């Protein structure tokens, strides 16, 4: 019934096709099919190692190219100033199909290699220069710090001299270190030293090791270099210290040097003479200046190179990605050297075969040869993949259902119905005109700005909302509708028509009783209930019954969706053994409850002779004391008899559901055995699949490519319809359904609970923030009103629309996945994953 026009009711009809592609056009054909994006290729050589396949050489080359492209993009990312990258839609496309394709790829390869070489060269020289600069900077630091140090030493020396001259105080008064120190300086620096820089983290170890090496006679001084050194390539920061160590004797000095070098320190030759030191400092500074100039120039030319790369980077990335996909696909093909053709097999939507054929012809023309690829359909028993053609409107709804499970091939697709039921059940829980309007407007904005938003990267969370914009739109619309039904707008009520209740205000009593004035409020809840004392009692009872009614309708509907499946797949047994008993069971208990609810609503209890009965008690006593109804609480005449009949019907359905299907399966098996058939493989299913598949192999061999198809025959998947399995499955199914009916009906009460919570929360918010300030008199009150208004609006959006909305969304999701899908959904399919160049992760 859906053969002419794609519909969401069932997944697309698929065909297994075989393609014979001449080698010359193979690349272009796959490129064309990839652009088209509706062929799912099968791996025809699953037993071949990845590197033994036909197009490994090409893939390796592409890998090398993509490594280069990755190298460029990391280089660009690491650059501190942002290098502009031209987006893909702005770049000129690189044509990699047609007769000049090979040449283009060669050129691209060359260009990439050249860029890489240039860039690495520049990096190297930049790094080398950077290191030299670093060394010079370090040298400068060492010179400066040691100068400070020597200057201090000089001062000390004079101090000591004077003190020695003036009073004969012994040197021992000074502490040990100073002692050594003065001895050194006193001898005009004949005490030698080692100076250099070392990483700050290593200083303690360094000191410790030296202390031990020098047997405790360590005189070391070190200071921090304030600014960190940045590695030009990795961008990592290191902090260093300047140190100077004094020692005496060549052996010790070599030892210190050796330790220092092995610990990663850099040593600088420093002269003890102050003049020479300042001279070398000048020299270092001069060289440093020169170097920094060179470094700057190198840096800027490197940047120019990167900018040049940035202009083409996106299109290179695109080409490399596509080419890799193409060759990986080509590797799935069976390669026939003798006939110079590639054989491909894959699933396509039957409807698209013509388009594909056109594409194939187009590819032939593009590549400039005259041998077109040949496509023909294969007969198969394999289950095709499930492919639901969606558009941007249905996509979101379909995704909701697909994330529960991919539907079996050609099964009734619950995604179609979710388009309406999902927003509706959401709205039952979210009903409020105001809140509905807010999310409607938000969704509308996202839809109107769709093109612009689709191009920007929205981030994970906003992206999710954007993806579901059409769901949100419908959710908003339906919420406005249910809001009208509940007569709720930001917890206030709309008073559009004449209320049915008058409140004669006589003022004497605290309680004013409404008087029916004969009007009927035509649509939704009467605003007269708003603010009434028994408002909550009324609304509770109303919403609770409504959610049971909606729930039973939803479940009945979901149950009915079994029927088209059974008819389509020609399983009449399932209609008699599953669908009918299930339907009777559901209707005789909960369908009856719904009828009672509706009947009770239609009776004017103020004029009736009996009290209005409690329906919950009625349902419970229907099980506990069948056939007995208290006459004072009787809903209608003949109620006991009807209830007994319904109960019996439900009771019969359980064994019916439990036994029929296994019995029929057993009889079937028995019949086959009696007729003398014995299964070859020993699995007594005898439904002819084996014979068919061997036919299939024969047919394939006639066409001269037995190898490829024989494999296909081997992986034939069909369930083993073992008798024991049927029994167990049916037992589970029965228990699940019967218990499920009760718990699922109760589960729909969440509609009531959430809707109530939502209404109460919005009312609380209103009274707590805005209500007290609604009649401002002075400036202060006005200010408070505005502040409170903003506060109220913010909370309305974030708590009531976002959080409550998400919670209602989740509950609606659960009602679909668990309560509805369990009634009919098989979900044993695998999704159709065609070769396509459109990459969802690949955004500009």
């Amino acid at each position: 019934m859906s053969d002419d026009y794609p519909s969401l009711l069932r997944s697309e009809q698929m065909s297994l096709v075989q393609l014979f592609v001449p080698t010359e056009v193979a690349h272009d054909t796959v490129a064309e099919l990839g652009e088209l994006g509706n062929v799912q290729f099968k791996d025809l050589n699953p037993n071949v190692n990845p590197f033994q396949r036909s197009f490994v050489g090409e893939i390796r080359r592409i890998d090398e190219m993509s490594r280069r492209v990755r190298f460029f993009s990391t280089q660009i990312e690491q650059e501190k100033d942002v290098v502009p990258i031209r987006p893909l839609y702005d770049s000129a496309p690189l044509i990699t199909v047609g007769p000049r394709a090979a040449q283009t790829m060669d050129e691209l390869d060359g260009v990439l290699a050249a860029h890489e070489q240039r860039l690495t060269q520049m990096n190297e020289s930049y790094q080398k220069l950077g290191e030299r600069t670093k060394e010079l900077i370090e040298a400068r630091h060492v010179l400066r710090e040691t100068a400070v140090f020597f200057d201090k030493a000089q001062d000390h020396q004079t101090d000591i001299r004077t003190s020695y001259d003036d009073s004969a105080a012994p040197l021992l008064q000074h502490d040990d270190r100073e002692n050594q120190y003065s001895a050194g300086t006193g001898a005009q620096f004949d005490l030698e030293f080692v100076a250099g820089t070392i990483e700050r983290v290593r200083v303690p170890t360094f000191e410790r090791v030296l202390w031990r090496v020098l047997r405790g006679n360590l005189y070391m001084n070190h200071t921090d270099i304030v600014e960190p050194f940045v590695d030009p390539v990795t961008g990592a920061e290191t902090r260093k210290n300047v140190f100077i160590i004094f020692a005496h004797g060549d052996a010790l000095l070599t030892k210190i040097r050796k330790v220092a070098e092995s610990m990663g320190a850099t040593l600088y030759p420093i002269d003890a003479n102050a003049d020479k030191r300042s001279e070398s400092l000048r020299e270092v500074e001069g060289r440093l200046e020169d170097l920094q100039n060179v470094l700057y120039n190198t840096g800027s030319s490197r940047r120019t190179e990167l900018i040049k790369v940035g202009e083409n980077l996106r299109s290179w990335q695109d080409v490399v990605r596509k080419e890799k996909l193409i060759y990986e696909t080509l590797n799935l093909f069976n390669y026939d050297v003798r006939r110079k053709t590639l054989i491909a097999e894959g699933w396509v939507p039957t409807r698209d075969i013509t388009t594909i054929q056109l594409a194939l012809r187009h590819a032939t023309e593009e590549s400039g040869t005259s041998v077109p690829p040949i496509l023909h359909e294969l007969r198969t028993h394999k289950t095709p993949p499930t492919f639901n053609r969606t558009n941007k409107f249905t996509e979101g709804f379909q995704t909701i259902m697909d994330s529960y499970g991919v539907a079996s091939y050609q099964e009734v697709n619950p995604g179609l119905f979710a388009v309406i039921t999902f927003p509706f059940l959401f709205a039952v829980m979210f009903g409020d005109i105001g809140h509905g309007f807010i999310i409607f407007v938000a969704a509308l904005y996202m839809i109107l700005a769709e093109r612009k938003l689709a191009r920007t990267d929205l981030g994970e969370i906003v992206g999710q909302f954007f993806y579901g914009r059409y769901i949100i739109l419908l959710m908003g619309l339906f919420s406005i509708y249910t809001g009208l039904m509940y007569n709720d707008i930001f917890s206030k009520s709309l008073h559009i028509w004449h209320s049915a209740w008058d409140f004669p205000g006589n003022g004497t009593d605290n309680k004013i009783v409404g008087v029916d004035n004969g009007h009927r409020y035509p649509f939704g809840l009467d605003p007269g209930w708003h603010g009434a004392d028994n408002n909550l009692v009324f609304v509770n009872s109303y919403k609770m019954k409504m959610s049971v009614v909606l729930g039973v309708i939803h479940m009945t509907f979901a149950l009915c969706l079994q029927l088209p499946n059974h008819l389509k797949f020609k399983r009449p047994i399932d209609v008699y053994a599953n669908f009918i008993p299930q339907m009777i069971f559901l209707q005789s208990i909960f369908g009856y409850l719904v009828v009672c609810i509706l009947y009770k609503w239609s009776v004017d209890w103020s004029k009736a002779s009996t009290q209005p009965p409690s329906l919950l008690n009625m349902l419970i006593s229907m099980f506990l004391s069948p056939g007995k109804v208290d006459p004072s609480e009787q809903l209608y005449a003949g109620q006991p008899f009807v209830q007994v009949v319904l109960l019996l019907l439900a009771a019969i359905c359980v064994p019916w559901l439990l036994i029929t299907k296994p019995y029929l399966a057993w009889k079937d098996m028995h019949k086959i055995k009696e007729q003398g058939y014995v299964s070859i493989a020993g699995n007594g299913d005898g439904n002819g699949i084996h014979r068919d598949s061997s036919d299939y192999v024969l047919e394939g061999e006639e066409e001269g490519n037995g190898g490829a198809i024989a494999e296909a025959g081997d992986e034939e998947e069909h369930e083993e319809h073992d008798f024991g399995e049927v029994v167990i499955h049916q037992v589970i199914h029965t228990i699940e359904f019967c218990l499920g009916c009760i718990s699922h009906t109760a589960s729909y009460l969440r509609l009531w609970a959430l809707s109530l919570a939502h209404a109460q929360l919005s009312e609380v918010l209103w009274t707590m923030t805005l209500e007290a300030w609604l009649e401002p008199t002075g400036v202060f009150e006005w200010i408070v009103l505005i502040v409170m208004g903003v506060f109220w609006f913010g909370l309305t959006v974030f708590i009531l629309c976002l959080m409550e909305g998400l919670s209602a969304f989740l509950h609606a999701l659960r009602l679909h996945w668990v309560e509805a899908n369990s009634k009919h959904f098989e979900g044993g399919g695998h999704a159709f994953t065609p070769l396509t160049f459109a990459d969802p992760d690949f955004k500009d």
Partner: protein
Amino acid sequence: MEALLFNVDSGFLEGTVRGYKAGILTQSHYTNLTQCESLEDFRTQLSATDYGNFLANESLPISTATIADKATQILVDQFKYLRNNAVEPLSKFLDYVTYAYMIDNVILLITGTLHERDTHELIERCHPLGIFESMPALCVASNVEELYQSVLVETPLAPYFRDCLSASDLDDLNIEIIRNTVYKAYLEDFYAFCGSLSGPTADVMQRILSFEADRRTVNITINSFNTELSKEERAKLFPAIGRLFPEGNNQLAKADEIDQVRLVCENVGEYRQFFADTGSSTNGPGDEDSGVLSQLEDRFFQTEVHLNKMAFLQQFQYGVFYAYMKLKEQEIRNITWIAECIAQNAKDRIQDFIPIF
């Protein structure tokens, strides 16, 4: 008892390490790897395993050394992850595992310095797990006393070195003696530590460590034939644990030729097959011996792999961590071997690796 409380502290890490173990290459992976024609094939093939794209960003002529380095780096990262998440006593246990690498590094540096190699080059060749802060300073020392006093005294290895301070000069023989003494001390200490952990850890680890000790004993014995090492000194190098200890060790200390070693080994059931089919043809001692030795080495490795695999059969013990490290090391050796064979086009010897699973 372990079943009750083990998972409180170490359950996550044991799960992690068992997950890592699932990534160890299997026989079919090796079959695929040995069929590679070039190192690029090799890379493609490895990218289908748990190694993933670890070589993807290497520019093309890949060297065997790069492959080994990168593979080791993966192992080191995994080990560091385990170590950083471990608490006592597992953290101590994992530290013990690193001590072996530290000993190797120390010996490597001393030997290198002795032969006047460049220090930085030596440090690069050190195993990353055995690197400690003051390690580079080792190259300053010219005798053991100095070595100990200046560097090792603050490392956890200090107690192991305490025993060999008597050896004064650093020469090749002395270094070898130091290595073995230190390793002996390490093994005994580790053995005692595992014993203190009791329960299944002690069972599993002591089995593995006993084998390790026996292997060293046998190796020392064989390598000391026809050298200037006296028999008393040799006896001092034997670890005082293992299944050959004590009477096997005593006999080995007096052994003069390989047949005597075989006789000793045959006293232990599991070691009997080490010399199994070599004994029949011992007519020419020269070439034959080296053949026996390389075969012996292979068999040692096989037994080690077997024991380490057995360690995974038992739950709630630390042996798995040790065993994983050893198995992974063996795997890296295998990969490197295969890569080397491919690079040098020596296909006939490509099968000489030791499969793990």
